[in-house]
């Protein structure tokens, strides 16, 4: 069974400082990994994904994430945080399948607060 953990309910960072939002996962086989962002009263918005290839994945709005197979982690990072990055961030994992279910499992979410 697939599972994902976001160990922090909330991350606080000052504007201009680097940010990290943590995610660890458990799957059988090679994982498909995703990060989504949700602004208040909006749907989830895709940020980036890892399927295969380079362990460092670059996504929207200057975000990146590094796939670490040995640590089963996929932490989201940004070199310099903006106040507008304040939102709820969800990590998701899916086992690769050929046909059939395409259902990802979402983490519980991490609230990122960037202080001016």
């Amino acid at each position, binding site marked *: 069974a697939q599972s994902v953990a976001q160990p922090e309910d909330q991350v606080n960072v000052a504007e201009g400082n680097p940010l990290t939002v943590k995610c660890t996962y458990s799957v059988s086989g090679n994982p*498909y990994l*995703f990060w*989504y962002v949700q602004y208040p*009263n*909006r*749907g*989830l*918005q*895709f940020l980036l*994904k890892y*399927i295969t290839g380079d362990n460092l994945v670059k996504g929207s709005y200057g975000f990146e994430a590094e796939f670490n197979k040995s640590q089963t982690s996929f932490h989201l990072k940004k070199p310099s945080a903006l106040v507008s990055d304040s939102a*709820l961030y*969800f990590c998701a994992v*899916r086992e690769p399948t050929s*046909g059939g*279910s*395409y*259902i*990802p499992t*979402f*983490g*519980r*979410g991490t*609230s990122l607060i960037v202080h001016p």
Partner: protein
Amino acid sequence: DAMVIQNPRYQVTQFGKPVTLSCSQTLNHNVMYWYQQKSSQAPKLLFHYYDKDFNNEADTPDNFQSRRPNTSFCFLDIRSPGLGDAAMYLCATSTEGQETQYFGPGTRLLVL
């Protein structure tokens, strides 16, 4: 622009009064999902369609039903809403061979 549209954005209903939420997509994706999300929690999958094949999650209450009359539209029917059904309802789509889910803006349901 191709997108996922949900109507209405806000819905107020009375306890026990049936309500229908709608989702449409211009992405021509064959998979559509309905999620329930409460209070900044993780989205909880209610059901999904793979083409016309309906897949119900084991713990989705019988009070929740869905219809997908064609590729573009999907409806969520709540037959007798209770106070506990107040939540944000998210529609999403994806397609075989493309792993990303595309979400609509959500419908916030309030039950009085």
